[in-house]
Every structure is written in structure tokens, then in C-alpha cells.
């Protein structure tokens, strides 16, 4: 994976630290302070241990917290061709194991909440992509939300299944077969992805799941699984085989926080693999918006509507963008969508922290104009982040906002 999430980097840091202590100590000191393993303790340490510094102020610690938040978004910025038009089938476990209360309030409720957030983020970052939702319940796979580019439909569907009680056993095979079916006619320039949120430790399948995995590999469907309790070998196998022997697309959560991180990670498009790196040209239409006085039928829902977008190719009317024109199959998007997807192709470079010094050549954030706090006294941080291209200084909030939302540097735009 090219994105190192916080959890991993934290563990690394700890282990480096531990290694430098006495070796023999490592053997005996695997237990952490509060009974768990020490690396978990340290994983949460920034939230647990809030201490005042000498001056009696929490500022230093708070900025430390922000720091760790910032770390989360440091991405690998090497430009990479990625499959930007994504087709993702989201598979949600709704078997009885989702009733477990090891996640609050229970696995099912938290999953749905997190997934809703995921959907929002997903369409925010991948505006011209498509998504569908399947649930595994009572041994069967059920399509609860059709493949489409409209986040609201999905969110509505999710809200309605939130009330449904998880029941029975899951069947990965059924879910994967259904996903296969849904992804079958996806054009070759788009990705075919499946993301499974899997709470169970077993799957009750009607047939041989290994065969399903084989066809997934043949059809270049890439499966990512987020496990909620422990490592299951079949999941590992599915992920490994469908991701060119890379096991890292199978992850198991440590706690609620980690769960969210893993979902966030799935928002970022997969790098296009080396095997499939041919370039294709995609035909897209940029429809214009119309508003009408008399309602006319839209071609997507066959409903009477007062406006919408008109396909430049066949002149049929659709309700929302982005979508595939139901009549001529052309991809219809807005130019802003394309711009937002574009940042995955050439990500914005990370800002550098300005080293602590006695004096700085800036007093305000270039973007929001707020004054930089006077941290010279405690000398832990300069609170300034510099764009490596335009050399402007930004505050941490703007840095995060620029990288997470804007994907363009205001300083560079200004030149």
C-alpha cells in the first residue's frame, strides 16, 4: 500500500524505540501497563495521556494531537496512474455475528454509520465512480442498493437496513458471485472492485469458493476485505489472489478508530497494476443543465421532472450527474467532477513543517490570514507549514483543508 495509516507508523515508531532499549527486556515486557499489549497502549497514548506542560498550558499537547492528525493525511505523492473511474461493490456482513457488542453500540450499527460516512467521502473523492451495495444475511446475498453514482440513494438504502436485524450466516461466495455479476459489463478502463466488511469468522457457501476466487482473478476484480474480529484464511486468500499476491488489502480492525481509518483508506483509488497499464481514451459528455416550465420524462427513472441535464450526444434528459446515459451509454459528468478526480493522478505535494527558529518571515497564514500563535516560548513547533513550490506558509487547519478538500495550493494558484 502506498498510504501508511497512522496505526502502522505508530507501531513502527514504538518498535524502533523498544529495540533500542535492552534486548532482553523485550522478551519479558510484552505486556503493557493496562494489561493489553504494550503497542496498543502506545497506539492510544496520545489520547489517553493528557498532561499539562511546565507552563501549565495544554497547548503543547494539543498541538501534538494536531500533529498526529496531520500525520494521517501525509500521502504518498509520487504521481501514479490510478484507475479513476471506479466501480465498487460494497458488501456488508449482516449475519448474526454483527450483533456482537465489542464495537459500540454494536457491530452492525457502527458499520452502517461508518459506511455512510465512507460513501460520502467516496463520492467526494471519486465523483465519476459507481457503487452498489450488497448485504450478506441468512446465507444469501441481497442487493440493497443498485449500482449508481448517486450517494443519496445509497445512504437511504443504508439507513433503511440499519433497522433490520442481522440474522443467520454469511456467504462470501454468494456475495462475490453477485458482485461478479454486477461488475461483469463494466468497461475495461474502469476498475472493478469489491469491498467487504466482514464481521464473521466463517462463511457458509453453496459451492466451492475457490472457484469463485479463480473467476474473480480472471475477470480482474479486486477484492478488499476489512475484518472485524480476527484473520480468516479464506479472506486472506481472496485478497491475495485478486490483488496480484499482495496481502495488504486484507486488514483486521483493532478498535473503532482503526475501523474508520481502514474505511478511509479504501476511499483512495487503487494504483493501477503494472500488468494492466495500457492507456485508453474515454468518451465523456458534459451535459448542460436545463430547467423547464412543463415537466417532461427523464430517461433514468421515467418520472416527470422539471429539469435536469441533457445528454449532448442523444439529447435525453437525466436527473443527476455523474451518470451513464441510459440511452447512449455515454459517461455524463460535470467538469468539476473531473477536476476533483484529477488530484489522484497528480496529488498535491505535502507541505513541510517549518523548522523551529527564533524568528520567522511570516506572521499570518497565507490562506486564512489568521495570525500564527506565539509558540517561540515553548519551542516545540513553529506551527507553520510551507508549500515547497510557492514557499508560502500555512496554518495546520489550512494545510489539512488544502490537502483533504481542495487539492490545489492557493499560493501556487496565485502566481
Amino acid at each position, binding site marked *: 500500500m502506498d498510504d501508511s495509516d497512522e*496505526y*502502522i507508523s505508530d*507501531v*513502527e515508531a514504538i*518498535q524502533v524505540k523498544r*529495540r*533500542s532499549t535492552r*534486548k532482553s527486556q*523485550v*522478551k519479558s515486557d*510484552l*505486556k503493557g501497563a493496562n*494489561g*493489553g*499489549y504494550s*503497542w*496498543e497502549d502506545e497506539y492510544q497514548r496520545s489520547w489517553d495521556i493528557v498532561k499539562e506542560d511546565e507552563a501549565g498550558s495544554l497547548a503543547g499537547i494539543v498541538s501534538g494531537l494536531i500533529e498526529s492528525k496531520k500525520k494521517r493525511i501525509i500521502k504518498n505523492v509520487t504521481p501514479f496512474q490510478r484507475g479513476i473511474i471506479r466501480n465498487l461493490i460494497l458488501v456488508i456482513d449482516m449475519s448474526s455475528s454483527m450483533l456482537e457488542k*465489542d464495537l459500540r453500540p454494536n457491530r452492525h450499527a457502527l458499520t452502517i454509520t461508518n459506511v455512510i460516512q465512507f460513501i460520502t467521502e467516496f463520492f467526494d473523492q471519486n465523483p465519476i465512480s459507481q457503487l452498489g451495495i450488497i448485504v450478506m444475511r441468512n446465507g444469501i446475498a441481497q442487493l440493497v442498493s443498485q449500482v449508481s453514482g448517486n450517494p443519496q440513494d445509497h445512504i437511504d438504502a443504508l439507513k433503511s437496513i440499519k433497522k433490520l436485524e442481522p440474522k443467520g*450466516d454469511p456467504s*462470501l461466495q454468494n456475495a462475490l458471485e453477485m458482485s461478479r455479476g454486477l461488475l461483469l459489463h463494466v468497461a475495461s478502463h474502469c476498475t472493478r472492485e469489491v469491498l467487504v466488511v466482514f464481521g464473521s*469468522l*466463517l*462463511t*457458509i*457457501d453453496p459451492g*466451492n*469458493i*475457490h472457484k469463485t476466487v479463480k473467476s474473480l482473478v480472471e475477470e480482474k476484480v479486486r477484492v478488499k476485505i476489512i*475484518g472485524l*474480529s*480476527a*484473520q*480468516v*484464511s*479464506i*479472506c486472506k*486468500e481472496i485478497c491475495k489472489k485478486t490483488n496480484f499476491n499482495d*496481502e*495488504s488489502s486484507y*486488514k*483486521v*480492525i*483493532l478498535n473503532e478508530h482503526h475501523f474508520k481509518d481502514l474505511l478511509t483508506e479504501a476511499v483512495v483509488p487503487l494504483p493501477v497494476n503494472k500488468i494492466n497499464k495500457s492507456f485508453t481514451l474515454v468518451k465523456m459528455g458534459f451535459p448542460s443543465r436545463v430547467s423547464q416550465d412543463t415537466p417532461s420524462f427523464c430517461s433514468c427513472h421515467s418520472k416527470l421532472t422539471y429539469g435536469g441535464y441533457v445528454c449532448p450526444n442523444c439529447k435525453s434528459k437525466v436527473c443527476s450527474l455523474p451518470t451513464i446515459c441510459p440511452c447512449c451509454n455515454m459517461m455524463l459528468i460535470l467538469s468539476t467532477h473531473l477536476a476533483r478526480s484529477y488530484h489522484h493522478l497528480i496529488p498535491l505535494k505535502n507541505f513541510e513543517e517549518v523548522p523551529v527558529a527564533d524568528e520567522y518571515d511570516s506572521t499570518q497564514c497565507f490562506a486564512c490570514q489568521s495570525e500564527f500563535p506565539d509558540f517561540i516560548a515553548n519551542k516545540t513547533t513553529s506551527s507553520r507549514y510551507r508549500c515547497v513550490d510557492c514557499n508560502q506558509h500555512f496554518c495546520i487547519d489550512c494545510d489539512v483543508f488544502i490537502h483533504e478538500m481542495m487539492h490545489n495550493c492557493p499560493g501556487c494558484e496565485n502566481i
Partner: protein
Amino acid sequence: MKFFIDDLPVLFPYPRIYPEQYAYMSDIKKTLDVGGNAILEMPSGTGKTVSLLSLTVAYQMHYPEHRKIVYCSRTMSEIEKALIELKGLMEYRTRELGYVEDFRGLGLTSRKNLCLNPSVNKERKGTVVDEKCRRMTNGLAKKRIQEDGATDVELCEYHENLYELEPDNLVPPGVYSFERLTEYCKDKKTCPYFTIRRMIPFCNIIIYSYHYLLDPKISERVSQELSKDAIVIFDEAHNIDNVCIESLSLDLTNDMLKKASRGATSLNRRIDDVKKTDAKKLQDEYDKLVQGLSAQEIINNDEDAMETPVLSSDLLKEAVPGNIRRAEHFVAFLKRFIEYLKTKMKVLSVTSETPTMFLQKLKELTFIERKPLRFCAERFSLLVRTLEIQDIEEYAALKDITKFATLVSTYEQGFQLILEPYETENATVPNPILRFTCLDASIAIKPIFEKFSSVIITSGTISPLDMYPRMLDFETVIQESYTMTLAKKSFLPMIITKGSDQVAISSRFEIRNDPSIVRNYGSMLIEFAKITPDGLVVFFPSYLYMESIISMWQSMHILDEVWKYKLILVETPDAQETALALETYRTACSNGRGAVLLSVARGKVSEGIDFDHQYGRTVLMIGIPFQYTESRILKARLEFLRDHYQIRENDFLSFDAMRHAAQCLGRVLRGKDDYGIMVLADRRFARKKNQLPKWIAQGLSDADVNLSTDMAIANAKQFLRTMAQPQNPKDQEGVSIWDINQLQAFQLEQQHHQLAEIDGDGDVPMLTHEEELELAELNDL
């Protein structure tokens, strides 16, 4: 990587080495240097085999003595694995050294596994294959064909083709796994079995099962030629005492006696037939015996030497006594002996006697003397050969009787005859078994310690180490138990002493059927089935207990509940059924269904089957696997150990139970990239922590020795989550794995320590500045 242990250059076929591997190799070298025996406990999955091989091969190639290596393992698959490791090692050596060493490494297994002759290898029973082969390979048959063109005998062409080759080069140098050798032999149309057998004297290393060294019936034929200074290694040797005992023990049943009688009658018929057609043959044999030749000498020209059940040192080198020289007299003698045994079996009470007592009574009632009895086995083999008996199956029972006769009349000390008229405690129909059992494990292994200067006994679980030298009556120069260095704690041992309801759990005999305990064990199983992904292995102390607890679980609906999470498979005494169950188990573990395997601590599964990775994420030991203490054999053995070796009954029982428990636990952890939960569920385990192998005990924190089910489940859940996180291989570096620099730094440090010790007055040796820097740097890694 290449490094030195003292003056010995060792080529190790991996770029990195575990610290425990290095310690292990250093200790082996020390043992070999001073000469003597060692007992070494090396955690499972730490590359024991490759360390053993790298060091001994290096030792052999470096020093001018070129000591031969004899490596004994348990099963054919383990031997094959060792051969493959050896092959990799030799390839690596070639690459490093830049030339091919003159080296030959072979493994030996039974004819049944190796035979290529299509008319023989279809047989399913090993003994039949052996016998059929013998018939086609013995010198007599060949002579007959050459001399009078006999057509009723056939020769095995695979065997004949070997004569075309130079006798010391039946297979070119190199290391051959069974697979590779069979390929080679198929190509050349030669017999793999005899290729190996005849090449043993020309091998640098021979890998085979214990029996080829320990069992007198075969060791004489196979291992005779090994030289004194050979390095003998027993791997997976935690049960070596039982192998020793079994190789000298024998059970007789009514059925066997009946078959033996029938065998004797048909043997008589054969003798009559032969007398009519070819009387000369029998006369020849008789004449030779009269001349005072021993049976051994008479058959000596044969391919196979004598098959005697007793140790070579106890073999009588005398002529066969007069009253059994004639074939028909011998058969009559046997018949009398069998009749006596039959009457003996009619006794309806348990009797236990020493061989001396047995012989005395025998003499009183039948006038059978001790001396001719001692020759029974020999005499029988000779007769079978003289009569050229084709169908040895028919005489298998008779052969066992002659073995028994020889054994019982050869040994006085350390053996016991026990007659058990009823199979079980409350059976009413007698089904007597006469057990001739060896009580002293040291008898069978003694010749090995006497003959070879260095014997290394090693296993993953062989604690407590000092028990073995006592039981087997030998001295060691090194006894060591290594701990496992891990960057990430990859196994979680726990002792559960009570259920979630705080009621103590135990498999103690008096309370084991108490419903509350059974229920507690049941809910523990349910909980673990719920949280363990893929494979879960459960061990019970005995079949009997397993059956009773399973039926109780059935009625408590516990199994239905488990079924929701896992398939349930059960080990049975039937090998084929168990194999099938295992196959299903493995499939279920890899397709996501998940399975529980219910098995027995002393069964096949606990000994030879590995449950690596998904095949075993949790192992549950339900109860302490004590031996069945009412067993008379065990009682006799305990008594013997107490009287002769001052080992207290309870010490031995506890030791034996814990080694089996450890063996079961070790099944789930087969390498450093593996992980698993090990649960010991019995209140009494809490006091036995120090009897576990050091590497397991070290992972068992004090907080985990007295858990209730719910606490254990919480621990386990957390552990599984942690283990599922991606591992960074870098974490292990320097801690649990060394590259060459780190190893050298360690060696350097060690040298300084030694120097400091030699200095005596505690002076810290002066380091040069560079050395100091180097050390500091490496310590920081």
C-alpha cells in the same frame, strides 16, 4: 551466511539466523568436541533441522575424521523433509565454496514405501512386501535359477540390475530425497531400497527412523556397519523411551495362539511334503546344525541377515540345541509351547509374573527348558528358509510366538508378564491378553550409548530434561532448553482453571462426569469456537473420556451450538477414518467454514500432525493427559522406575502427562510467522507451569495461569486482533533474527565476557576504540 563457531566454519543456508539457532549449534559443537551425549530442547518452528544439519555437515567436512552422521527421525514425511533441507544446504555449500563436495546423503524407509517392482508394491501390508521381496532377492533362488534353471522362482530385475553397477557407486554422490531417488531408480531400473541399504557404508549422512537403530529386529541388519565415531542424532525424541520399550515388548492373544497352532500344523504338512520330494534339503539343514553351525552362519550368505528379536549383545553364539535340530522335533516343540500358553490363557484372574517365574512354571509342567526356547526365533527363520515357504502371512502368528519364546527366555531383569483375562473392567466375556512387556527403556538403547561416542537427543518438547538421562540411564555433557526470541509474541499460552461461573474445572477421575464441569468445558468449547477463526483443535486425555464427554455434550445441546460455528470432526482409533476426518478438517479450515477437531492426547493426531497457520489457531487441552493409572503395565513400570531409578510414581506420571500436553500445544506453532492460542484447561495445570518446556513457560505470564473462561476469551480476542495486524519483517531484525554483522557482534561480546571471566578479578577488558564504536553501533540496532 558463513560464520565461525570457534575454529569451525559453518555455512548456513539463510542470510539470517535466529539467536537460539546459534546457541543450539554452539552446544552441539561442544558436545561433539568433547565426545558424549546431549539433550537439547529446541522450540518448534525455529529451524531445528536445518541448524542440526548445517552444523554436523560442517563438522564432518571440516575435521579430518569425517565423522558419519546418523540422523533418526520419526515418520517418513519428517525424514523426507530433512532430506530436502539437506539438499538445500548442500546446494548452498556448493555455491559458497565454488566446488561440489564429494558428499552422499540418503534416507531409508521400508520396502513398502520404496519398492518399484509392480508385482510387489501393490501389496498393502509391509510384512508381505518384505517377504515377497526377500523371496525374489535371496541368493538361493538365484543359485537355483543359474544351476538348474528352475522356473518356479522369479528374480526381481530391479535388484538384479544392481549387480551391473559398481558396488560402491550404486548411485552417484549427491543428496537424494525419496522422491528423487525413486525417479533415478525408475530411470535406471534399479531397486531404490537396496541401493540405499548397500550404500549406507558409503554415505556421509543417513537419515532414517528410530527403529533402524533401536529395534533389534532390524538394527542388526541395517545399522551394523556404522562406525563408532558416528554422530547419532535422535530428533523428535520426546517419546524415545516408549519406542525403546515397544521394540522389546509383545502381546499375545487367544486368536494369535489359534493361528499359531494352525500355522504349526501346516508347517508340519510342509515338512512332510518336502520330505517326500526333496528330503535332502532338510537333511542338509540338520547336518549343518549338527556340525554346530549357528543359524546365523547358515543363512549368512543370504541378503538379509537373521531377524532376531533380541539385542545383538544378548544373542547366543552357540549351536542350536539338539532337541530342536530336526524340523519335525522343532515343530512339535513349538506345539507343546503353544498348548501351554493356551492353558495359561484360561486363567480368569489377573496374574503378573517375572520371566523367571514363567520359565520355572513352564518347566515344571511341560519340561520345556530355557535354552531351546532361546533359539526359537532363529530356528524358525532358518526353517522357513529351508522350506522355501512362499506364503509367510500364514505363519505370522507362529513367528510371533517364536519371538516371544526367545524374548522371554533371554531377559530376566526389567521385564514382566502380565495376563489380563478381561478387556475392560466390567466385561464378563473373557478375552485374555498375555502381555510381555519391557519395563526398562534403557535396555534397548544401551547398545547405542555403548557403541557411539556422541548421541544427541533433541525435540521441541523434551522437558524436564533430566528425566531422560535417568530413565534411559546415560550421562550427558550438555542439557539445554532454548527459549524462543520473538519480536512479536506469536503464541498465547493460558491456563483456564475455572468456568465463567467460577466453578473449578478438572478432568480428575472422580469428578470428570459431574454435569457442571462437563457443561463448563462445553461452554468453553462454544466460546472458543465462536472467536477462533478457521481451525480449532481440542485434545482429551483419552478416548474413553472423550466419548463420554461428547455424549454428555450431545444431550446438553452443546454440540448443536458448536456446530453453528464450526464443523465437528472426531479422531477415532481407526487410522483410515481419522485420515478422512483430517482431510475434511483441512478443507473446512481453508474454505472459510472452519472446523473443530476433537482428538486424543496420545493419539496419532497429537504426535504426527502439524496444525500450522489456519489449520490450528487455537488448541484446547481439556484435562491433564495422565496415563490410565489402573493399567497394570503402567503400574509395573512405575514400580520398576521407583525401585531401579529412584523416580517417584507421581513424578513420572506428571512428567509423562505434561510432555504429552506440551506436545499437543506445540502442534499449532510451526514457525515464526505462525501464531496460535494454547489453552490448558484444568485446575491442576496451575501448579504445573514449571513442567512445561521453557519456551512455552516463558510465554505464559503469571497473570494467565489462573483464568476463568470469560477472562481467557477476552485475552484471546485481543490476541487474535493483534496478530491479524500486518507484520513488519523489520521488527524482528536484531531482536529475534540476526544477520551476519549482528551475529559477529554477539560473538565479539561473548568473547569479551569470557575474557572478563578469565581475568578473574572482574577487570573489564579494554576495548580498542574501534571495537567500542562497533559494539555501540550494533547494540543500537
